């Protein structure tokens, strides 16, 4: 079982510090969601892993060994900017890419047939790539990443531009590869997808990993959040001044708050029940999108 480790990765483009001491690990069977604003360094990290770029310092290790040309061949890679020969036929192109990875001709053909079938582009094998819709080109791109049965997947925004059916197919493939033991890293701006698919999530900002963990862990960092809804319009100003909690947000029927001491929420509930009719009460799971927004909104030096 493989484990991919990014250790102290830094990369400068002239004066621009694109990556700044980036550290994270993706274990076997993990699906790691890599999120961050545009230009945060996601693609740079992936391209360094693939050897397309060279790190200014730091290493990418596979099972403790620095990735080299031979071990990189085990990676299935989908670059951010899609790359295929525009005028080459889908089938020929996939066979060619498989052969470059060392598959014999017959195995390359079998793999091409399997993945085009699987990804729903079997009928387009004889078409040139540029004749396909962008979504279908994307599927070919994924097929190109999977054609040599890689042990590791590094996919840069694999879901962008896909229709919901294709998103499902792509999700299944990622889950399947992870189940087979592959570490899977993908970047995405579709945070609901990341939340749904990923074992762990890393949030990168200005070249630094500002938060890594399971979605639950990231949510627990946001504190113990609760939501209370009342029947009929209510004035929640009492909650703002309530001890041991901090009001996060409210409407005239609903309020979200953070407990500062364990059990404080029960006191809130008791108070609310005494003053009005409680419609619902429970733990509030912060969507990853909100966690992400909060995380990247913090000033740069907050992680020191």
């Amino acid at each position: 079982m493989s484990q991919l480790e990014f250790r102290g990765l830094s990369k400068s483009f002239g004066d621009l510090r694109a990556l700044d001491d980036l550290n994270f690990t993706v274990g076997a069977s993990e699906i790691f969601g890599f999120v961050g604003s545009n230009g945060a360094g996601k693609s740079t990290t992936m391209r360094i892993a693939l050897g397309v770029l060279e790190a200014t310092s730091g290493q990418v290790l596979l099972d403790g060994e620095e990735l080299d040309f031979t071990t990189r061949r085990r990676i299935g890679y989908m670059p951010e900017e899609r790359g295929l020969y525009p005028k080459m036929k889908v089938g020929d192109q996939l066979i060619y890419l498989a052969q470059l990875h060392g598959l014999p001709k017959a195995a390359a053909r079998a793999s091409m047939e399997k993945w085009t079938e699987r990804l729903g582009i079997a009928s387009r094998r004889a078409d040139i790539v540029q004749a396909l819709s962008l979504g279908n080109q994307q599927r070919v791109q994924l097929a190109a990443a999977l054609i040599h049965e890689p042990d590791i997947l590094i996919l840069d925004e694999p879901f962008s531009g896909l229709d919901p059916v294709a998103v499902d197919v792509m999700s299944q493939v990622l889950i399947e590869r992870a189940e087979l033991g592959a570490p899977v890293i993908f970047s995405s701006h579709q945070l609901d997808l990341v939340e749904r698919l990923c074992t762990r999530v890393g949030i990168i900002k200005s070249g630094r990993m500002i938060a890594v963990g399971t979605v639950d862990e990231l949510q627990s960092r946001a504190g113990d959040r609760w939501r209370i809804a009342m029947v009929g319009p209510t004035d929640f100003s009492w909650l703002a001044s309530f001890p041991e909690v901090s009001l996060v947000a409210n409407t005239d029927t609903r309020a979200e708050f953070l407990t500062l001491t364990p059990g404080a929420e029960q006191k809130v509930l008791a108070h609310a029940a005494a003053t009005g009719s409680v419609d619902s009460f429970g733990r509030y799971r912060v969507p990853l999108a909100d966690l992400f927004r909060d995380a990247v909104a913090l000033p740069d030096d907050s992680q020191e």
Partner: protein
Amino acid sequence: MSPNVPPQSDSGTTSTNPVDPSSPGLTSARSTRRGPTAPSSTTSGPTTPGPRQFSPLSSAGSIWLIARRELSVHLRSKSSIITTAIMTVVLVGGLILVKYLGSPDPIALGYVSEAEAATTTVVSMIEAQDREVSSMQYSDLDALRSAVTAGDIDAGISLDDGLTLIVNEEADSTVLAAATNAKHSLAVAQAAAMLPANEGAELTAQLSSPVAVTVLNPPSDVDGSQVAVGFIVGFLLYLGIFGGGMAVAQGVVEEKSSRVIEILLASVRPWQLLAGKVIGIGLASIAQVATYVVAGVVTANILGLTDSFSFNILTVGLWVLVWFLIGYLVYALIFAALGALVSRQEDLGSVLPLPMTLVIAAYIIGVSVAPSDPDSTIVTIASYIPFTSPIVMPIRSAYNVASTTEVVISLVIGFVCIPLLLAITTKMYSNGVRRSGSKLKIKDVLKAS
């Protein structure tokens, strides 16, 4: 493993779920089996990545695979098939033109019986001008006239008024000159017959001997067929080298602009990609040039043009291939290195002018300076510089003005130059292809590790 990883079972049971079980929407992702590919997932289920069943390719294997792709792309490309077809037609057509422009139609003469001796003189004079000529006797003047009118013969000869030429519209200048000379010789012979034998012979000899010409500055011995073949050789080499170089540059940029380079570099090294591309396009270009050479040599032989050639056309053809190989390698490497600097086809125009100027200069020296003055300093120098020698030297060879030693020296310079270029190009290409975006500077790609 990091402590953050939730417990995982490696037993492979379906209950092992890498997805956070508490995540909302999980079931929709896992239970989707309505996608277009769902039915096939049972027949082509996932295979265990496990131990790899294939070994990485050797360098030679990778290079050959890349070269084969390039070869098939270029052999199958419509534009190169059309170019080759058009050029072959132009070449064969050109040789046919040379044949029929260079050797005009044979002249057919007719005569009445009493003009037979005069006609024999005319025929021998026309033959002395390297023209083919035939003659035929007609029964009388009327038959002769109608044969001329009908176009069966170009001119009729009668003895009216000493010697008369009967033509339809106007007299062919060669025939007219020959007939005039023949009439004069007849008159001289008649006059000589009236003189004593020795004086008559002397008069005849004086009047029939040609004017002596003393040449003070003889031109180089380049005949028309050599100029023609030199021109064709120069043009084909120019076309092949330029076309091959451009194809390499465009191929390099295509991989950068389409970003396929990032995927390729995950499985092959830059130098392997470079080598495969240069070899593949080179083989396609050689096939193209060889088509021209074979078409040219075969056509020239069929037309009988080779009989009058002062050189062996097959040797010229083989030299064209050898020089093409050197010229192609030199320029393909330069074009590849410069192509790697840019990421868009439109930007090629900003990096290629220098090598393009060199190829065009070589071509111009070869086909416009060399024919008039093949021994001039500029032609000689150009036939040694590896950037111009592949076009200029074979033209000098076609003119028979380059000695074997000169050719060998020039070849050696070319062969020595190639590994040097290869080293520089590999460096520039390896550094250049990974960096897409704006145009790169030569010093940057040479400097980077």
